[in-house]
């Protein structure tokens, strides 16, 4: 156990870029590890017994959940149990914030939220332990989101909360459940090997397409400009980072950040607001250059576990839809025909027999960057020396006048 936790903490600090293989390793480890990690860990915090459980709540409830729910922790005491592996620091942090947030509201709200969310957590855990299909498990999760939202919107004792607080509450609930049950919900054992194959297939496909540049997709990106290049790097980092965060909204945030960087780079290059005609090809380009880890699994996870309302509307939903489009295009439609090039040429590039002109390396190789920087420095020096000479001349003239 000790060994495993030290492995895990190593993984969590390793960069997401180099973490491609490590992630798979980690997943495998988690799978072997999970049996030894009791689910009750998640709840055990303080031994405070539940102050007063309202009878109708417990009566309605499945008895098998009682041992879990009876140890409702006091929402205000986020004491960190020493036995938790270090990898759960994120979860501890969230629980602390969640409890602090709940402090602002009545005891009735606090009790209701903690009880219901924990019951849901237990049920989800139970279902995945019993090998229920992941789609059914997450249907249950989605139903919970929907029903809880309805409750918060209509039950009288929740009406002391502002609209904003209600949204935060729903966000906390989603984060809590998905981070707590990440292992069960993200590429669960039942589909793990299948997911792994899909992820690797996509990754290989993208690797074969790595030669694609802006011209192939008719993208207007001024990669010569440093600002644009930095935004492209930013976009690539954000999309890669997606795999290292757990909550669906955090993953969506990475996608949004990536997209905003792309849109900024596009509008800088074009000097006009970027439309979808500009954005989608650029996103495809970024996905190809980034080749993010476990991309398919991450998309499946967001589709299943993110509050469906979020994906339906709002900016994050739009960007996520575009990411799905980009991946579908890469998988099914990116071919010689859609790139308007002869089949043979396409195959030559894919097989690595040939490399197209004007490739990525033209703008993104480190030595070329260094060269560019040095050229800039020389230009700057030249400019300054001219300034200096001009000033010297000026001074000379002045001295002449004085004489």
């Amino acid at each position: 156990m000790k060994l495993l936790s030290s492995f895990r903490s190593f993984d969590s600090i390793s960069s997401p870029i180099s973490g491609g293989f490590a992630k798979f390793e980690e997943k495998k480890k988690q799978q072997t590890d999970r049996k030894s990690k009791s689910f009750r860990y998640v709840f055990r915090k303080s031994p405070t017994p539940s102050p007063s459980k309202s009878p109708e709540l417990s009566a309605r409830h499945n008895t098998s959940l009682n041992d879990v729910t009876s140890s409702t922790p006091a929402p205000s005491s986020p004491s960190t149990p020493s036995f938790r592996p270090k990898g759960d620091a994120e979860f501890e942090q969230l629980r602390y914030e969640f409890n602090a947030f709940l402090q602002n509201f009545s005891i009735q709200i606090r009790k209701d939220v903690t009880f219901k969310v924990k019951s849901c957590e237990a049920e989800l855990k139970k279902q995945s332990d019993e090998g229920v299909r992941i789609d059914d498990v997450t249907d249950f999760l989605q139903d919970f989101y929907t029903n809880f939202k309805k409750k918060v919107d209509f039950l009288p004792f929740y009406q002391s909360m502002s609209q904003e607080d209600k949204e935060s509450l729903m966000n906390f609930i989603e984060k809590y459940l998905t981070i707590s049950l990440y292992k069960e919900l993200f590429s669960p054992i039942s589909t793990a090997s299948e997911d792994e194959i899909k992820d690797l297939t996509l990754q290989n496909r993208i690797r074969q397409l790595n030669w694609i540049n802006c011209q192939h997709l008719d993208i207007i990106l001024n990669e010569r400009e440093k600002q644009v290049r930095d935004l492209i790097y930013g976009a690539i980092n954000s999309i890669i980072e997606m795999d290292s965060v757990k909550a669906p909204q955090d993953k969506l945030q990475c996608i949004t950040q990536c997209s905003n960087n792309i849109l900024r780079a596009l509008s800088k290059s074009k000097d006009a607001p970027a439309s979808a005609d500009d954005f989608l090809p650029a996103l495809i380009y970024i996905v190809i250059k980034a080749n993010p880890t476990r991309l398919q699994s991450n998309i499946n996870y967001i589709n299943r576990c993110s509050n469906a309302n979020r994906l339906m509307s709002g900016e994050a939903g739009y960007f996520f839809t575009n990411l799905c489009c980009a991946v579908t295009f890469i998988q099914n439609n990116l071919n010689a025909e859609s790139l308007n090039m002869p089949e043979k040429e396409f195959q030559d590039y894919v097989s690595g027999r040939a490399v197209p002109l004007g490739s990525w390396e033209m703008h993104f190789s480190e030595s070329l960057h260094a060269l560019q920087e040095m050229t800039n420095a020389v230009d700057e020096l030249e400019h300054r020396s001219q300034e200096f000479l001009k000033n010297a001349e000026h001074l000379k003239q002045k001295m002449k006048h004085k004489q």
Partner: protein
Amino acid sequence: MGTNSVASSSRAFNFKVVLLGEGGTGKTSLVLRFVEDKFNERHITTLQASFLQKKINVGGRRIQLAIWDTAGQERFHALGPIYYRDANGAILVYDITDKDSFQKVKNWVKELKKMLGNDICLSIAGNKTDIDRQRTVTPEEAEHYAALVGATNFFTSAKNNVNIEELFLDLSERMVAASEGEDPQPSTGSRRNVVVVDQENRISELNQRSWGLDSTIERKPELLF
């Protein structure tokens, strides 16, 4: 549904509207004119026109429109269904001086009809009436086609700000009507040709999604509080 109608008087509507049109038809200018009321690119503050939101008021109802631009290039045609899934409305833009762009609109309409049936409200915008002299798509042809497929037809000019507001307001009215389950046949007259066949299923589905009144409440008693 009972709870719904009680809530509907005060509720805000959230609608997803997809924007379809070839590059060069002016669909970006059209949506920017509506959202920012600007045409000249130098005055536009937003960095992007791919996803825009606007709050409007129609007949005392608060409506939040989320306008989803879609990539119009032919190579992305197959991705359409991913974009317009769950959309309440679609605006199809063509250039009145470009017959091909009108043909593309027809292709999209066919596809939308096939995938979503009458669940989606359609508006067709013939843009660039400011260069009417070069028109190649006749008004009769456009209107006839729109009537045939149950879409509303508008001739717009993003440049001169003609009919843009009207286009969005009309679409919003029809989306409200569709989601409230009223007969969306407009009271104002013959301008619109709306064909709506049995929207009952869509309505209950919509309400479930936006209001969380899921039928699963009955199915899963352990979550009934």
